[in-house]
């Protein structure tokens, strides 16, 4: 892009960073949970949970196969989990990771257009809008799924269930980011229109 500091090197660096991110999310966020669901990574599942402050939780509350470790924030540990319990435990991570993979793939397509010096290429505005939608939906969906998983996994142990906070709150920062990305998508849509107007201009 002549007249700007953004060049081929910056474009390659951006693509490289996105590929590294994609690989990391693929391994840690998708492959690892799938392996845990398949039972290839131990004979227990662990999910982070918030603990009721009022609840007098012993250092390590346990009821049968289900145990609770920690004071205010702890880990819900289910020994010898069933397949359904494994899926429940990994669902929030998998959902978040699959959203992240989709976002990264879209960003890679946008980065490819940047590398060619054509930021306002047709389709980039739509891709950014899709990124905003994925971030927004992910932010809204993952917390209730995490709460549902904690609730269902703790259900067999009443003492543990009473100590675990099963409510959820939606984080505002990612929602704000989604709104900003949607605004950026609109700016790209406008840019694409301007690009179309100036195409063939001498």
């Amino acid at each position, binding site marked *: 892009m002549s007249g700007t500091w953004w060049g081929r090197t910056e474009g390659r660096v951006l693509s490289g960073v996105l590929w590294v991110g994609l690989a990391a999310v693929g391994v840690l966020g998708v492959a690892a949970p799938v392996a845990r669901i398949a039972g290839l990574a131990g004979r227990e599942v662990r999910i982070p949970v918030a603990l009721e402050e009022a609840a007098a939780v012993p250092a390590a509350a346990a009821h049968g196969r289900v145990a609770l470790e920690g004071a205010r924030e702890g880990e819900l540990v289910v020994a010898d989990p069933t397949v359904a319990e494994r899926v429940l435990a990994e669902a929030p991570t998998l959902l978040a990771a699959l959203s992240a993979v989709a976002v990264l793939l879209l960003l890679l397509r946008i980065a490819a257009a940047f590398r060619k010096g054509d930021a306002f290429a047709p389709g980039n505005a739509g891709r950014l809008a899709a990124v905003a939608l994925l971030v927004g939906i992910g932010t809204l969906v993952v917390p209730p799924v995490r709460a549902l998983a904690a609730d269902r996994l703790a259900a067999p142990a009443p003492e543990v269930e009473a100590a675990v906070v099963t409510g959820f709150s939606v984080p505002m920062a990612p929602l704000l980011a989604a709104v900003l990305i949607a605004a950026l998508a609109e700016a790209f849509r406008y840019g694409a229109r301007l690009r179309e107007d100036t195409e063939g201009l*001498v």
Partner: protein
Amino acid sequence: MPPEDAGAITVRLDRLLEERGLTVTELAARVGVTPVNLSVLKNGRAKAIRFSTLSALCRELGCRPGDLLDYEP
């Protein structure tokens, strides 16, 4: 009339270049546009022309906009 129908504008740059004994490259250098862009204009593939480009072309070719552009309904 929608802008898409502006195809009836024709550019007579070819004839003017021949009459003045100029090449596209020479005129492009004088006008301050790239030879590629001037070829786009010469071959009728341009969708729009800047007033500054039109002025420079008229200055260098010693003509008026009407000598350069024509409209065929």
